[in-house]
């Protein structure tokens, strides 16, 4: 499998502000890759470098096997981009903008254009100045999804969409994945990423802090366990990787490092298990754990 996007040690500064400080991102061909990070962590800067709109200060970037800066226009024929905040020309209609962007990209499929307009319930005859934010977003989505390209770069594409339209978007991306297209999806909506993405990359302060499959990432974090036992358990507090242990009579609640689950369960069964619920970590917990790092480091600095 070749990588659609391969970024190593990417750096970019605006004057004295460092936007990217050694970011790594690898997106394999045919996968839907989630790109997560708090506001200002460098997601949009990374995407704009991939589009050749910004020039990298350092590091290596390969996009569809080419250099996004020097081969921009050739590469752009093979990708489509949806910005998070779509600005349109106020006196052009949505349909005109879709056709314009499609033609500039090298053509779009009219049948697909029509079906996408139906699915997103977008009226193409309305002038762009009369569109709401959500409708402007739909214009960019239809233009991108109706074009025959290998790679979709989506920068918070569902901001401003209502839940019904968000569901339509998710269905479209599922189809794209089935059709073998590669998608880089930058998003804040974790349920969306969790449902759609094969792998995710989490960035913070311009650096990659975590990358891998969701299953793999879950291994790095804790599973919450609640159990009712035959008798009060012994020695759980001595086990490695057990946190927030709360024992009331013969009921137990705790968080267990996912890679230490085996030893923990062995100890539980020794006491006889009447009922057991365990919850895998949600992406939200993964996400919060990395962002909580921000606050911890701030506290350390101020202490």
């Amino acid at each position: 499998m070749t990588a659609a996007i391969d970024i190593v040690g990417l750096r970019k500064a605006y004057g004295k502000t460092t936007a990217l400080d050694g970011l790594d991102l690898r997106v394999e061909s045919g996968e839907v890759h989630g790109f997560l990070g708090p506001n200002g962590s460098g997601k949009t800067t990374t995407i704009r470098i991939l589009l050749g709109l910004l020039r990298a200060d350092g590091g290596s970037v390969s996009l569809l096997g080419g250099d996004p800066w020097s081969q921009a226009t050739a590469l752009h024929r093979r990708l489509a981009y949806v910005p998070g905040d779509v600005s349109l020309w106020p006196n052009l209609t949505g349909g005109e903008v879709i056709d314009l962007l499609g033609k500039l990209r090298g053509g779009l499929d009219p049948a697909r254009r029509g079906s996408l307009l139906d699915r997103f319930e977008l009226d193409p005859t309305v002038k762009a100045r009369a569109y709401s934010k959500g409708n402007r977003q739909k214009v960019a989505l239809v233009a991108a999804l109706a074009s025959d390209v290998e790679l979709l770069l989506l920068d918070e594409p569902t901001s401003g969409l209502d839940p019904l339209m968000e569901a339509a978007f998710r269905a479209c991306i599922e189809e794209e994945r089935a059709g073998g297209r590669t998608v880089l999806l930058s998003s804040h909506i974790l349920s969306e990423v969790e449902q759609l993405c094969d792998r995710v990359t989490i960035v913070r302060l311009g650096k990659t802090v975590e990358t891998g499959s969701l299953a793999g990432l879950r291994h790095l974090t804790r599973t919450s366990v609640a159990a009712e036992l035959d008798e009060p358990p012994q020695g759980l507090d001595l086990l490695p990787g057990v946190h927030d242990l709360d024992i009331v009579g013969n009921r137990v609640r705790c968080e267990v490092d996912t890679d230490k689950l085996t030893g923990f369960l062995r100890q539980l069964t020794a006491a006889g298990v009447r009922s057991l619920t365990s919850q895998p970590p949600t992406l939200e917990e993964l996400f919060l754990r990395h962002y909580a790092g921000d606050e911890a480091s701030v506290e350390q600095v101020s202490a």
Partner: protein
Amino acid sequence: MSTLTGTGALVRMALRRDRIMLVVWLYVLTAFVASTVYGFRGLYPTTAGRIDFVNTAAHNPAFLSLYGQIYGDSLGSLTAWRDATLLSIGTGLLSIFIVVRHTRADEEAGRQELIGATVVGRHAPLACALAVAVTANLVIAVIMAAAAIAFGLPAAGSLAFVAGIAGAGLVFAGIAAITAQLAQTARSARGLAIGVLVFAFLLRAVGDSAGQGGPRWLSWLSPNGWAELDRAFGSTRWWVLALPLAVALVAGAAGAMLATHRDYDAGLLAQRRGAAGSAALRSPLALAWRLQRASLLAWATGTLVYGIVIGSSAKGIGGALGSGEVRRIMARLGGQAGLTNAYLAALLSFTGLVAAGYAISTVLRLRSEETEGRADPVLATGAGRISWGAAHMSIAAAGTVLIMALTGLGTGIGYAYRAGGGGAEIGRLLTAGLAQAPAALVIGGIAAALFGLAPRASVATSWSVLGVVVAMLVLGATLQLSHWVLDISPFTHLPKLPGGTAHPTPLIVLCVVALLLGGAGLAGLRRRDIASS
């Protein structure tokens, strides 16, 4: 709660927001009156001199259409003739800007939503806008009257004079209150109101220059005409001032009535639907043309009409220059023909500067597309930066040439119609207009180079360059600037046409310089980061 609740607080905030703009307008309009009185007092200190001037000016259709009728030979009458109609355009524009700014522009920016959610009545924003406009016109009238009286003009006449000017301001505040309810956007609300203002000016211009037996009554239909028809410093017709007051009241009330029938941030004129798709929008050039064509059409029409007006007014120009002494000096400079040529050359070079302004604003559309986030989606497709940049730049260049060609053509048609000469005159003046284009192209090229190489500074610097070039052309001779300094301006190198001899070399050099500047801009654009919105 009344529909006017909160108006007072809004007015205080609006006056605070506008305090600098209002002071600048006040200063410019008052300085205009002061310099007119001062100028006429110096030029024609004696009654005999003024009578001589009035006799010639009153028969010059160019003067009559531009300024209006002369109602006397006193210093006050000359001042009112020169300033009343022109300054009433100024107060009209000021009122339009104020009213639209505090109604539709605020709605468009979303600020009115914040305000409207507080304890503010439905009509308060419009009432506030009208109150600010009325206040501004009253203050301007009082200060202009004080200036006129300080220069020794009669008090009663001065009051009638400034009342006419402020009256026109009130009329256009009312008209803007109506267009603000009709139009879809703030921009078109302003455009509609300014359209009415231009129409009023043209009505008066036609009426005033019509002569005996012509449709002179047209001036009576125009708010622009009422400003002079009160004969401020002659036998004053005070009742004429009731016309603008009545129209302003009716228009303001009509605006308030219409305001109850429209939705927030929407006009009464229905938003037209457009095409569901487009086969023509297939390249950056097609997009740039689509974005720029309306502006070019307006500029082209405006300059063609301007050309026809200056061309048809040129014939009698010698007669306006008053005393025999002046005419003898002028005769030495080339006689009547030389005088007409010099007049047309001066007005055409003014249009050259205007065309340079068109070139700058058209090139800088690239910058606003970039900073407002509309460049990203285009540049993220197969369209390259060069084709995107070159598309807007070539429309700027072609538009500049077209504007100068139409100015020259219009001037030729107007002149040939009044003075005869047929196709030869038209060709001669078309060439004279076109000869201005290379200098305007150089200014546009500077904007293009700045956009590519120093994008952040491009807007301010481009317009400053034009400002310096205008100052050199207007003041260069007066300030006796050395030729080395004047040579910096591309307009210095143009031949004096019509009348002079044209050498192609400087024109070719200017075109090459413009091309090089545009190329430098494109080269810079290729190497730099695209700003994010």
